[in-house]
C-alpha cells in the first residue's frame, strides 16, 4: 500500500508479486521443474523470461534465475525453451496451484 491518492493508484499496475498474492498454492518442497541454467547462457532470446506469466524466470546478467514456487503449471516454458534446458513434471499429491475462480 502506498500513500498515493486512490484515483492514481487505481490506474497503476499492480506488481506481479501482489497479483500472485491472490492465488493459492500448496507448494511442493521438491521442485517440479528443474532448470539446467548452464544452457541458458547460449540461449538467444530467453523466451521463458517474458513469457512465463508468473515471472518464474528472471535474468541476472547473462544468467537466468529460476524459482518454481509461483508456477501455475501452464507448461509454456517447456514449449518455448529451445535448448531443452527444462525438466518439467506436474507437482504430485495435488500440490502446486489451486485455482478457485478461473
Amino acid at each position, binding site marked *: 500500500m502506498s500513500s498515493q491518492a486512490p484515483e492514481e493508484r487505481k490506474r497503476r499496475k499492480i506488481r506481479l508479486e501482489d497479483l500472485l498474492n491472490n492465488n*493459492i498454492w500448496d507448494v511442493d518442497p521438491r521442485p517440479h521443474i528443474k532448470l539446467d541454467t548452464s544452457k541458458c547462457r547460449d540461449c538467444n532470446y530467453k523466451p521463458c523470461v517474458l513469457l512465463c506469466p508468473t515471472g518464474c524466470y528472471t535474468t541476472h546478467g547473462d544468467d537466468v534465475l529460476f524459482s518454481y514456487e509461483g508456477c501455475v503449471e501452464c507448461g509454456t516454458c517447456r514449449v518455448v525453451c529451445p535448448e531443452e534446458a527444462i525438466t518439467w513434471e506436474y507437482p504430485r*499429491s495435488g500440490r502446486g496451484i489451486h485455482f478457485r475462480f478461473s
Partner: protein
Amino acid sequence: MGLDIIVGIKYVPNTTNVNIDPKTGTLVREGVPSVVNPHDLVAVELALRLRDRYGGSVTAISMAPPHAVAGLEHVLGMGVDRAILVSDRVFAGADTLATSYVLAKTIEKIGRYDLIVMGQETIDSSTGHIGAQVASWLDLPYVYYAIDVEYTGDGFIVTRELEDRVERYRLAKPALISAKMYSLEPRQVTLRDKLRAVIERPIETWSNKDLGLDPNCVGLRGSPTIVSKVEFTPKVPRKNIIFEGDLREAVRKLVQALVEEGVI
C-alpha cells in the same frame, strides 16, 4: 511385535498467501481451500517410517468439521492405514484445552497404541499446546522437537534436536512426541494408497455419541480461553531496491542503505 501409532492431524485453511482486502482491511477468506497442516505431514512421515521399520499400523485422528475427510484421504493416500474423524457440533468453538480433551478421549477409546505423534504446531493457530495437553490428560511421557525414534520393545529412544544440541531421551511406552517441523520430507500420495483410501474408505466418523463426553467440557462451553481481540500486523511495504555494479560495489551500497534506514 509391531508398533501401533496414532497421528493427530489438523485440517487448516491454506493461508500461505494471506490476502487482505484493501477496502475492509480484513482477511479475504472467500474460497480458501483447506490443507492438512503442513507440519502434521512431518508427523505422518515419521509415523510411517516407524511403521515401515518396525511393522504395526498408523491411525490418523482429526477433530474437525466433516469436510476434513479430504485431508484424511490425503494422509491415507500417503500410506496411513486407518483414519478417524471426530466431528460433532458440540465440539465447535473449542480452544486448545477443549480440543486436547476430545483428542485424549478419542485416543483412550481407540485403546491400543504404543506411540502418539503430533505436529510441532499448526499454521493457523500455532499454539503448540495440543501435544503437551494430550500428554497430560493421558499421563504420558512427552518429548517435542523429535526428529527420530528408536523402538526398544518396552519403550523408545527419542532424538530431539534443539538449536544448539541434540538430546536423546528414553521413554516408556506408550508415549507422545511431536515431530520437529521441516525435519523430514513428507512422502507423496501414491496411486496405490489413494485407491485404497477411496475404495475401501477406512475412515470412521465419531461423534459425541461415541465418546459420551460432558457437553460442558467440550466445544465453546468447555473453553476457558477468551480471545478478546485479533489485530493484523500492518504489511510493511518493501522497498525492492536493486543494487547495481559489481559485487563489492553492490554490497557497499546495500550496507549504506541499511545504515540510512537505521536497520544496522
